[in-house]
């Protein structure tokens, strides 16, 4: 029995989709019960997602992070973990629809283009660095996604503030800050966690590269784009320290910087330099 057979993936995708459908109107109408239902659906989807990854790990006898298909199941899990953590710490229910939407997209891809059969681990990936490197990167990408989502909420909150100046209503339902500055701070916090893990992932990749190939840096397209992503967020960190770049503009930069993450993750095969790359998903 293949742990990644369709029913499992479909079930998880449906639960995430339900969480998305329930959460959007509930958040807009501030319906407390609806938000709780969405959270339960999301939590259930996350639990099943966890089980699926554990089952696949057991079945494959290796970490299930090797192929694009496998990461399309792992990335939803990472965004789920970050979302649930932020809900637990900061009551940021607003992340549920964002995380659900990205999870549905990932799982839909997994359904459309599943791995036909288990891919065995090539010698280059048989390393103790594989799991820390990949997991750190995916946690970073999930945190940066949260910062992207929160930056959008912050931009939305700012527009609402300007137009309506709601008295004490908050931006959306489901808790969280009541003004744009609060949302910006949350987006920034997520970005910082993302940048720290991004740096750690980059450094681990370099150390691993040294062990595997004798080079800690080889200007492989994926490496280069990982650097571009890192530079984009480092630019954000510097911009944010400047006068006039604290609020709205910083959020726009955060939203735009996430494009670098997406391209680094999914866009490599578009590059003419991808042929010789050691990182490109086949």
């Amino acid at each position, binding site marked *: 029995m293949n742990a990644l057979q369709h029913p499992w993936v479909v079930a998880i995708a449906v639960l995430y989709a339900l969480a998305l459908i329930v959460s959007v109107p509930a958040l807009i109408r501030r319906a407390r019960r609806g938000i709780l239902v969405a959270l339960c659906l999301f939590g259930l989807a996350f639990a099943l997602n966890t089980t699926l990854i554990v089952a696949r790990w057991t079945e494959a006898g290796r970490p299930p992070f090797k192929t694009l298909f496998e990461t399309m199941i792992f990335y939803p899990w990472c965004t789920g973990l970050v979302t649930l953590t*932020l809900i637990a*710490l900061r009551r940021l229910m607003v992340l549920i629809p964002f995380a659900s939407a990205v999870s549905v997209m990932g799982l839909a891809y997994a359904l459309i283009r599943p791995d*036909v*059969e288990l891919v*065995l681990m*090539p*010698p*280059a990936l*048989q*390393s103790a660095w594989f799991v820390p490197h990949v997991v750190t990167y995916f946690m970073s990408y999930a945190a940066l996604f949260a910062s992207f989502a929160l930056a959008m909420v912050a931009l939305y909150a700012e527009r609402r503030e300007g137009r309506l100046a709601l008295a004490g209503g908050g931006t959306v339902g489901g808790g969280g*800050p009541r003004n744009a500055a*609060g949302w910006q*701070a*949350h987006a*920034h*916090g*997520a970005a*910082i*966690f993302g*940048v*720290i893990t991004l*740096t*750690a992932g980059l*450094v681990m990749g*370099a*150390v691993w590269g*040294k*062990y*595997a*190939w*004798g*080079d*800690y*840096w080889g*200007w492989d*397209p994926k490496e*280069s*784009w990982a*650097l*571009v992503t890192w*530079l*984009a967020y*480092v*630019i954000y960190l*510097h*911009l944010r*320290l*400047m*006068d006039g770049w*604290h609020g709205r503009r910083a959020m726009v930069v955060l939203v735009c910087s996430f494009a670098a993450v997406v391209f680094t993750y999914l866009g490599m095969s578009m*590059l*003419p*330099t991808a042929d010789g790359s050691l990182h490109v998903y086949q």
Partner: protein
Amino acid sequence: MTHPVQEACLPATPSQSTARPLPSTFRPSFISCTLLLVMLWALAIAGGRVGRAVAVAPAGEAMLPVGIAIALGALVVAVCWSMRRTLYLALTSLHFSVVLLGALMLGTVAGTLLVQNAAAEEYALRYGEAFAGLALSMGLNDIFHTLGFNALLGILILSLLLVPVRNRAWQLPRWGHLGSHLGIVVILFGGIIGNLSGAKGVLEMREGDTADRFTLTNRQRARLGPETLGFSLVLDDFAIDYYDAIYRLHVYTPRAEDRWEMTGSWEPEVDEDWTPIGNGAKFRVTQVMPDYRSDQVLREVASGQGAAWFTATMEHDHGAHDVRLQAGAPQRDLVTLHGDAGVLRFAWDAPSPAELDAAAEFHPVRHLLDVTAADGATQTLEVEPGGRYELASGERVDVHEYFPHFSYDMETRSGISLSDQPVNPTIRVSVSTDDTVEPPKQWLFAKFPDQVMGAGPDAGGPTLRYRFEAGHAPLPREVLVVGSTREVLRLTDGRLLARAPLDDGLHDLDLADIRVVASAVEETVTGNRSDEWNNPVIHLELADGAHEAGSHVLAANEPVPLRLADGSALVFERRGDDVRSYASTVGVVENGQRVASHVIRVNEPLHWAGFKFYQSNYRKDDPTWTGLQVVKDPGLPVVYIGFLMLALGLTWVYTVRPWLLKRRLGL
């Protein structure tokens, strides 16, 4: 993640707020910082160009350019010094950092959009002659190692060294700032050290080879020359370890341009339920035999119902194989012995003296034509290929060709002979009545005398039948085993030389397990030998929309695709050999003494005396050959220290520092 309260405690612009007051009116902006970066970049490139030109100029001619370069350099330094405060403020400004990081980002992106380090022809092919020429002259084929990119890194180092000074980063709360900024400088310095005093190359060895030097290579992997190691490496063993063979049922679907994509994969498991393949097709496996065999075994039967058999095991240099001879069966009653021992033949009855005499005689090959004329008269002709013969009835027969082992080649649409052995003796003849008409040719088969290929006999013409008499030459050496008397006869040129009982008559022939069976039949026994996946065969039922369910036997070692109605194909096959590991077992030899052994694998390099050896290559056609990458990188510890400083510094900035500030504020 940082709490909003902590955020609020952070000074919004720490660099400005703690900047040392310098008497300068400079207000950084993106425009001014961009201009400054462009100027510094141009200066750095110009300096680099001049330096390079001076370095390669002949000694005598270098005086003037060196003088000019020094003068210009001094001028630049003087100008910079006069505006040092402005420069300092600009280089340490946030605006400049953003502009510089943006420039590095652009350069990095460019390096991924253009193919790097490829051959010049590839650029012409990809981008056209004109652009390729421009790109190559600008070094865009190796962007990350151009003067321009290195100039940016140089400016980055300068800025990163000045920024902590301006921000007084040695104070405890700012250690993170110090670490993250200087960390990058340290990494880049480590890289420079590696480039200047490191070495990189390849070491290619076969098992048993010893090497005390390796071949230096450059970035394009071109070989530069030998470099000594200071010790020797001996390759004891190289082994490629594969994952266990996996046998799967695969479905391939045709895609564009003769490309097939694997669209399904299943484990071959017996299952009562049908497994859908798609487009209405489905299959189920009814039997799996991992170690299928098909053997011909002898079953003894009552006398007269079977043939007589001789079985033995013949041992030779490369092992042993079974010998099974059937008395009286042409070709199956003899086997060629090794060396010049002749043949071993098995017969049930001992040859009579007359038969022995016949065996000693020599008979040539004979081609006979039995001709039946239209009026019923018969005649027999002995013919030779190339001959022409007059028949009694007046026609003429031409014998054109003789094919001892006739076969018809569909490609050339002509008759050929597959061997010199008279397996299917055939001749090509034509019958004619006069010379004016080219007569049609026909093939006559000795084994199928009633069949005629080509033009048949004319009505009213003669009918021809071909008979072939195999020639006979006495065998120079023959060992004849006689079953009924259990005797061994030794013959030379057909003459009986010796006679011995079976028990000791064959001792010089390396035969073992000798057995004579008076009456037995050969039977095919099929089945599964073991659970080892040596020769898996499955029984499978397949049904698709267009066809009714059919039963198939599929052997993975001889995969035959089953075509489905939608054009895709189902195959039972062995999955490609996936490599589990490449392992070079090496010994280190110092001063003639073997001092260490190590197995080098991917991800497990050997470190020895400043060198690291990485498993990097192998050859499909030479299993004893290994390719090792050799790297000497004295800058590596520096780089690692830089990594640590960067990672810890960044963490400090956003975790320890807010905590320290909070404590200081008494929150």
